[in-house]
C-alpha cells in the first residue's frame, strides 16, 4: 500500500466517524444531565431518512441537516417528557422509541429507496489543505466533518471548563445538591436532553447526506450504529474527548477490515466485517480495567514505586457514571 492510499484511508476514517461523534456527544450531554436517551438507534435511522427526504424535496442540503436535528430533538422531547415530567422508566420508553423510530424510518422512507439525491461536497481549506500529511488528513473534508472536530472541543470545554458545564455535572451526579446551589434541575434536564437529541439527530443526515449518501431502507447498513454509539458513550466515561477516541477507533477497525479483506483471503469476509464490534468491546473493557476489584488487589501486592505509577494510570483511565443517571428528581 502506498503512503497516499494510507493517508486517504485514514482521512476517510476521520470523516466516517463523524456521525458517531455527534451521537456520542449528544448522548453524553443527555446522560451527564441524568437522562438516558436510549432511542438513539431509531433516532439516527429516522433522522437519516427524514434529513434525506427534506434535502431531496427542497433541494436544500442545509434544510436536510436541520430536519435531522429537529427529528432528534422531538424524539428527545418525548424521552424527556416521559422520564422527567411523568417519571416513567427511561429504559422502557427509550427502548420502545428505538424500535418505533426504526420501523417508522423504513416505512416512511419507502419512496426514497435508492433515489439519487444531494450529497455534501468536500471543502478543502485553502492554505491548510496543502500542508503535507496533515493537509489531506485533516483539512480536505466536508463541512460536517469539520463541525465534528469542533464539536468535540466545544463539548469538552463546556462540560469541564465552564460554570454551566460544572452545574451540568452536578445535576447528573446529585440533583439535590445542584438544586440547593440554585439549579432548576428539571428544566436543565429538558434542555440538555433536547440539545443532546438534536446532536444525535445530526448523526442521521451525516450518514445520508454525506458519508453514505442516499437512503437504502433496511440495507442502508445504519442499523446498529446507535447501539455502538451508546456503548462508546459509556466506555468513554461520559467525556467527549474519550468518546471521540472510541468513535475513531471503531471507524479505524472498520477500515482495517476492508483493507485486510484482499490480503487475508482465507478468512471469511463476514468475520472481518463483524470483528470491529467485539474488538471494540474488548478494547473498551481494557481501558476500564481499573474498576475491577482484582486489579486493586494485584496493585496492593506490588512494590511501592511500581504501584504508584500503575495506580495513577488506572485512576486517570477510571470512569464512573453520573450517580443520578436515570433517577427522577423530586424537590424532597
Amino acid at each position: 500500500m502506498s503512503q497516499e492510499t494510507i493517508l486517504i484511508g485514514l482521512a476517510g476514517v476521520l470523516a466516517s466517524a463523524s456521525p458517531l461523534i455527534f451521537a456520542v456527544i449528544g448522548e453524553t450531554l443527555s446522560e451527564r444531565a441524568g437522562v438516558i436517551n436510549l432511542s438513539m438507534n431509531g433516532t439516527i435511522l429516522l433522522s437519516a431518512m427524514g434529513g434525506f427526504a427534506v434535502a431531496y424535496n427542497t433541494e436544500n442540503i442545509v434544510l436536510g441537516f436541520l430536519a435531522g436535528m429537529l427529528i432528534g430533538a422531538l424524539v428527545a422531547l418525548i424521552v424527556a417528557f416521559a422520564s422527567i415530567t411523568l417519571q416513567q422508566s427511561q429504559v422502557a420508553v427509550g427502548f420502545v422509541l428505538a424500535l418505533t423510530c426504526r420501523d417508522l424510518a423504513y416505512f416512511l422512507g419507502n419512496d426514497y429507496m435508492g433515489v439519487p439525491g444531494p450529497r455534501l461536497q468536500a471543502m478543502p481549506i485553502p492554505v491548510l489543505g496543502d500542508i503535507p500529511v496533515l493537509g489531506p488528513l485533516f483539512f480536505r473534508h466536508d463541512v460536517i466533518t469539520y463541525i465534528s472536530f469542533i464539536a468535540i472541543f466545544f463539548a469538552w470545554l463546556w462540560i469541564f471548563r465552564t460554570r454551566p458545564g460544572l452545574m451540568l455535572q452536578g445535576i447528573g451526579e446529585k440533583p439535590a445538591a445542584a438544586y440547593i446551589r440554585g439549579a432548576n434541575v428539571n428544566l436543565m434536564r429538558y434542555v440538555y436532553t433536547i440539545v443532546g437529541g438534536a446532536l444525535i439527530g445530526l448523526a442521521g443526515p451525516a450518514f445520508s447526506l454525506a458519508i453514505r449518501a442516499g437512503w437504502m431502507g433496511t440495507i442502508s447498513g445504519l442499523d446498529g450504529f446507535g447501539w455502538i454509539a451508546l456503548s462508546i458513550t459509556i466506555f468513554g466515561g461520559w467525556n467527549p474527548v474519550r468518546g471521540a477516541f472510541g468513535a475513531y477507533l471503531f471507524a479505524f477497525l472498520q477500515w482495517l477490515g476492508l483493507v485486510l479483506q484482499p490480503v487475508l483471503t482465507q478468512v471469511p469476509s463476514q468475520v472481518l466485517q463483524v470483528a470491529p464490534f467485539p474488538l471494540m468491546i474488548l478494547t473498551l473493557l481494557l481501558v476500564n480495567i481499573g474498576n475491577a476489584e482484582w486489579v486493586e488487589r494485584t496493585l496492593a501486592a506490588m512494590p511501592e514505586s511500581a504501584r504508584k505509577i500503575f495506580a495513577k494510570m488506572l485512576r486517570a483511565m477510571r470512569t464512573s457514571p453520573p450517580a443520578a443517571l436515570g433517577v427522577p428528581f423530586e424537590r424532597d
Partner: protein
Amino acid sequence: MNVELKNINKHFGAVHANKGINLNIPTGTIQGILGENGAGKSTLMKILSGFIQPDPGSEIILDGKPVVIHSPADAIKYGIGMLHQDPLDFPPMKLLDNFLLGLSGGLFPNRKETAQDFNLLAREYGFSFDPESYVDSLTVGERQQLEIMRLLFLGARVFILDEPTTGISAGQKEKLFATLKKFPEQAMTVIFVSHKLEDVENLCDRVAVLRGGGLVGETKPPYVTSNLVEMMFGKAITLGARQPAEAGEVTISMKNVSLEDVRMKIKNVSLDIHAGEVIGLAGMEGSGQDLFIRACAGLMRTVGGRIHLQGQDLTGKSYHTFKHAGVNFLPAARLEEGLVLGLSLTDHFVLAEEPKGLFIDRAAGQKLAEDRIQSFNIRGKPDSTVESLSGGNQQRAELALLQTPLSLILLEHPTRGLDIESVIYIWSKLKGRCKTDGAAIVFISSDLEEVLQYSDRVLVFFNGMVSAPLDAGKTTVEELGQLIGGKGWADKGEAHD
C-alpha cells in the same frame, strides 16, 4: 442575624407537621432544636431553608423584615445556609470544582483565584484541604467542614445544622463544635437540630423542644437532662443501671487470628467471648473493627489463626455455615445491606423463615408479620415497604428478623441516628436475647457512652492494633477517647499472645 418564626404551620395532606410554631432566635446565639424522630424539626428547618413552603399565614422575619423564601438558593441570598445530614456535595469531583459549583460569575470560572480564596478561607477556620484532591477521599466530618466553608463563602449568616454529629468521629465532633462556638462572635446565628441531648447540652446557648409538631418549651442552661427528656417524650425515661452479664460457656474463640484487606492488617488476635456477654468495639471508623466483625460473621477469611464457634472449628467456612451455627450479622447500612428495598414487612419475615414448599403461604405470612409487629412495637403495617418506615422502625424490623436460636449477634452501629427511646428499646430487646438464648453480642459503635453503657468488655481498635479487653465498668469515656486517638497504648497492651 435575628431569626423570628411566627405562627409557622405546615400540613402534608391530613398530617399537621408544624403546629403554629413561634420562635425568636436572637443574633449571635447557638439555638438548639431538640425533638425525637418525627417531632417536626426537619419540617421546620426545611421551611426556613426554602425547601418547602409553609401554609399561608406563617411568617419568617429576618432582622425585622418579613421574607418569603422560595428555594434553598433563595435562602442563601438572605444569608441562611443549611448543612444537611448527608452532605449535599459531589463525591467524584475535585474539592475546588465542588466549591466552585453554584458560585455566580462569568462563563469561565477563574480557577486560580477561586483556589486562593479557598485556601485563605480554609486557613482562617483552621481546616486543611487540598483543593485538587477529590471529595470522595474525605471523611463525612471533613465533608461537613467543606460545606461550612462553602456556605461561609456564600455569605451565610445563619447556619442550620441537621443532625450533624451522626456518623462523625468524636474528634471531628469536637472540632465542629469549636468552629461553631466561634460563630456568635461574628454576629452569626447557629441553629443546631438534634435528638442527642448530650450534644445539645454541650453546645447550645438555648434549647427549644418540639414534640408532635408543636413547640413544647424553651430552656436555657444549666440544663436538667431529665427535664429535657420529659419535654421530648412527654414522659420520663431512664437509661437504667449497667447490667453486667453472667458469663457462660465460651461462644466464640479466636486464636492468633490475623486479617487483612487492601488497607489494613490485623495480627494475632486471641480472644474468648462467652455466652451472654456483650463486647463493644470502639475506634475511629476504618481502624480494623469492621474487619474483625466481618471475620466473626464468616464474611471475611482469616489469613492466619483459627476461629471456633461453640467448640466447632469454623475457620475459613462460609457465611452460611456461620449463620447455620446461629451467627447473625446486622450491618450498618440498613437499607443497602440489611433489608430489601421495595419488599414489605411480611415479605421480609416470610423470606427469613425456613421455606416450606414452593409457594408462599400468604395468610400465615400475614399472621407472622402482625405478631412480630406487635411484639417488636414496629410502627408500620404488614404491607408497609421497609423504606417507608422510619430509621428506628427499620432497626426494630431487623431485630425481628434475627433467627432463633442464636449464638452470636454482630451489630454495626445498631442505634446510629435513632432517638433515645428507640435506643433503649433496641438494647432491651438485644439484652433479652442474651438472657433467653444465651447469645453473645459483638457491636461496633462510635458513640462511646453507648459502648460503655451496654458492653461488658470493650476492645479498642487503632490503625489495625487491637487492645486487650477492657472492663467496661472500670473504664471512662475519657480513657476510651484517648485510646481511640492512639494515646496510652503502651500500658494497655494488645490482645496478642
